[in-house]
């Protein structure tokens, strides 16, 4: 009798353990990711070659850094569509600054890198102004974030175009290219050493730091509280205004940083850098479990979401679909991703 009871208990425990694993959101997202990888691999085995994986990782880091910031904004219950334009601003402005001031007169000297770093920091500071502007419009003027950030997206893109008059900014200083293109060598293809790029390492670092901050610190708890119920958070003494402003500024800085990295990667500040990224970033976050109503989401989910988006993008190229149709497929993926998000939320409510 007692034996039977304990057996039942063990069984129950086992089941709950399994159930628990499957109830972790991130696991649920991994399944479609694996299916996609298998699908692309069977169509074209090149998909899983070292060179291709490394190139996926390299491109992924640029989106990923923005997605880290966007996840914070989404968890805090807000929304930012202007991130792509801000990446463009970061790319163009940093290059512009380095060229116009010739790295504060340090060009072609052994100390060139100091000038480069200063230029990057100034760029990030300038771009954070866009974050403050978004924050002011959404938080203080209480305008709808969706519509207003479309407005700032156009304004920032226009500023980029006016500053460059539509032309690319180059040649960028050599030490800038060196700093951002450092990589940990993995394999050799022909004469070229390919490896894990600096942006990806930075991306992983940001993911780890912010995952810990979100889970373990007051900073993270405040963001979750603000996103899930702003009024309650305010009543319990959280400065929700500060939290939301901070999210907008963080996402601006990360977008600009990503833009700077892309400029270094492309060896030029191209004014169309970042066009259309906002939707890919948001789709990545949504696939990763960040809801569009706030209060839910995690960095681990975001990294998987960003992976899926990039696997699809890369897979479409490998499979050989026309680059124009890719935009269409991306649109469909965004719709499906957001629908999954809604479906999941409904199921949770039912449960």
């Amino acid at each position, binding site marked *: 009798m007692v034996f039977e009871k304990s057996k039942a208990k063990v069984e129950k425990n086992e089941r709950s353990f399994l159930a628990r694993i499957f109830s972790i959101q991130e696991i649920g997202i991994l399944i479609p990711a694996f299916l996609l990888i298998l699908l692309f691999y069977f169509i074209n085995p090149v998909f899983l070659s070292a060179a291709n994986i490394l190139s996926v990782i390299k491109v992924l880091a640029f989106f990923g850094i923005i997605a880290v910031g966007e996840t914070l904004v989404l968890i805090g219950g807000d929304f930012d569509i202007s991130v792509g334009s801000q990446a463009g601003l970061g790319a163009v402005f940093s290059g512009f600054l380095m060229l116009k001031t010739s790295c504060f007169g340090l060009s072609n000297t052994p100390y060139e890198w100091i000038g480069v770093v200063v230029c990057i920091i100034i760029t990030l500071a300038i771009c954070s102004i866009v974050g403050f502007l978004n924050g002011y419009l959404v938080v203080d003027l209480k305008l709808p974030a*969706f519509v207003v950030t479309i407005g700032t997206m156009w304004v920032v893109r226009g500023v980029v175009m006016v500053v460059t008059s539509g032309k690319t900014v180059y040649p960028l200083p050599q030490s800038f290219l060196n700093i951002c293109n450092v990589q940990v060598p993995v394999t050799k293809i022909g004469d070229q050493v390919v490896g894990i790029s600096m942006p990806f390492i930075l991306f992983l670092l940001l993911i780890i730091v912010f995952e810990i901050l979100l889970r373990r610190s007051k900073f993270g708890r405040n963001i979750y509280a603000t996103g899930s119920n702003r009024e309650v958070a305010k009543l319990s003494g959280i400065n929700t205004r500060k939290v939301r402003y901070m999210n907008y500024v963080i996402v601006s800085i990360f977008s600009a940083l990503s833009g700077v990295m892309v400029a270094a990667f492309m060896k030029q500040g191209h004014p169309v850098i970042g066009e259309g990224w906002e939707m890919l970033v948001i789709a990545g976050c949504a696939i990763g479990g960040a809801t569009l109503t706030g209060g839910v989401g995690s960095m681990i989910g975001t990294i998987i979401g960003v992976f899926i988006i990039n696997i699809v993008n890369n897979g479409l190229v490998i499979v050989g679909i026309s680059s124009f149709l890719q935009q269409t497929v991306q649109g469909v993926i965004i719709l499906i991703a957001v629908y999954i998000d809604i479906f999941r939320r409904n199921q949770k409510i039912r449960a």
Partner: protein
Amino acid sequence: MSDLESKKNKIKNTGLTIVKKIFSIQEVSIIIPVLALLILATIINPMFVHPLNLAAIARRMSMWGLVAIGEALIILTGNFDVSVGAMVAFICVFFSAAGAIWQLPLIVAILLSILLAITMSTISGFCIVKLKINPILTTIAMAFICRGLSKALTNAHFVVFAPAKGSEGFLKFGQAEPLSLSWNFFIFIAFIIIFQIILKKTDYGRKLYATGDNSNVARLAGINTDIIKISTFIISGTLIGIASVLLVAKEAVGSSNYGTGWEILAIAAVAIAGISLVGGAGSMIGLLIGVIMMQCIYNILILLQINQHMQSILLGVIMILSVIIDLKRRNRILGSKLE
């Protein structure tokens, strides 16, 4: 003595209330900034009031004005569509290809194009209303889909529209300038009048307002709000189809770049028109004024020879300003109701 005074006061009061009443008509409060803008524009550049320029404004605005009518109806019921510009590009390219490459008869090509526009728009509507996906996300995704399709269809080239034999009159119709305006302009005005009547006089119009004002209450009152909301997308799709066909008739070319920024023009015109961006208020006459105002602003920018990139900044600023104007007006209306 006191009798006379009170009578005098009464007359004075009625005079005041008449002025007040006139100013409280929404359309009047929109017309004043438009007039101010026109005067300012004339001072900046006297060419602005030249009849040829005014006719050009009228022709230009009727292009995207048709699309703005659909957008206004969608916004009236509390939704949003930012894919209209991309959809115009897709339908234009499709229509040109149908005429030039697939050699379909003109009528078939026109009907197919309008049907396609309705289908795309209805898909958006279905995702928003039935699947409850955020309207802006849905329509941005739809914009991606349409731009991608329009580029894929043409490899990002132009498609020159060549009508089948016997229908050369179609291009003549598109490029004709009756009264130095265009047929497009008259079609636009006709639609404005039709929808003004529908909104104010029919059962359907009242249901639109009710749904936009408070969807839940409307549902409790027995209105099938889902059908009403999707119907606005169907109407918008139809108008997009018609606008695209007319655009190709005018330009004789289809390009995947058509319609860039039209969604912002349309939304800004809607916001200026006093159609609340959260739904439930506004009229088509107001929209007409909003469309005129936006086109005047655009025209002034061209007359001032402001460069194209600067215009994208201004579009963004206009977008933000129109949201702010909408919010201020809503607060004012709310305030006066509370009084």
